[in-house]
């Protein structure tokens, strides 16, 4: 299947959803691991206590790719995540996350052709506030349609 065919078949629909509860301990732990020192990210007694803007990048869904997605995992590597921050995460929030494939494209690099798969997670709180959009890029090397 070519990249274009994969894109037509697998992008633009939600293939996974998760719900999780946010605790102060989790927010502090992540902020501390990031080296954050501002009290609003590390001190639960701070009146504006919230998660660091990239907090939701730590959340994964139950699947990396839709069922039946033809990927050769032994050739894949993680090409990192980017986050678009919309609103802060607070302790006690119940988060709803949705997963979709946002884009599939090819490029050629020093090691040959590569297939990029963009797994996008959108996160909302219990008030339906859109908190963040996280794009995770998965790369398959030596892609040959």
């Amino acid at each position: 299947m070519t990249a274009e065919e994969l894109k037509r078949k697998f992008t633009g629909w939600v293939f996974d959803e998760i719900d999780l509860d946010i605790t102060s301990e989790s927010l502090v732990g992540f902020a501390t691991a990031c080296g954050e020192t501002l009290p609003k990210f590390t001190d639960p007694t701070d009146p504006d206590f919230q998660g660091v803007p990239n907090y939701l990048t730590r959340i994964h869904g139950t699947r990396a790719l839709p069922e039946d997605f033809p990927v050769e995992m032994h050739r894949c590597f993680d090409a990192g995540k980017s986050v678009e921050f919309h609103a802060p995460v607070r302790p006690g929030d119940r988060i709803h996350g949705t997963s979709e494939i946002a884009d599939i494209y090819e490029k050629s690099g020093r090691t040959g052709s590569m297939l990029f798969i963009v797994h996008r997670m959108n996160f909302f709180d219990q008030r339906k506030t859109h908190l963040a959009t996280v794009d995770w890029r998965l790369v398959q090397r030596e892609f040959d349609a």
Partner: protein
Amino acid sequence: MILDLHSHSIASDDGRAKVENYCQWIERKGLPLDGFVLTEHRQFDDASDYRALEDRFGLLILKASEVETEYGHVLVFGVNDDLRAAFDFARIDNPIAMVLAESERCGAVAVPCHPGRPKVGMCAHWETRGPVEGVRIVETLNGGSREGENEIAERYAEEHGWSRIGGSDSHIVSHIGRCATRFEEDVRDIDGLVRALRRGRFDAVRPEID
């Protein structure tokens, strides 16, 4: 006049630099650049308008493209509607002969970039697939090249009599201006850049060294 002819902003999937941050870096570091060209991967960025940044920083900011062919990557200066209709910029297997010919036909200039690089450079493919007709200019100084890769490009340019440009191939702010192109004439817009490239009075330079 010195222009960095090869750079990427966040409009490219692997670009991590905002155009404003490039401008701020050039100003803060006092780099001897008069401007730079954004050559986004596999696309032409129609939407962005950098005129306000040009005025604020006194820099020329032009837009071009880096497309992909079976002989590696090629910069295309002077992208217009005719050229965009001629082939699919998003493909990674465009025939290089077609890219060169269509660019010429549509009034643009196509320049194989980092030609000494394996897989995505023209020279390795030249050895295995044969020569390419229509090459006039190559990028002999690329800021992202590894040891020996620019030397391969220079050797090919020397052997074939091609003109030489330089570009940083920057994807992050601090890499802008590592390599560039010095023009004998003033360039004020993309049409002027195309004219200057056609006239051939330019050379690849390392601005902070040369």
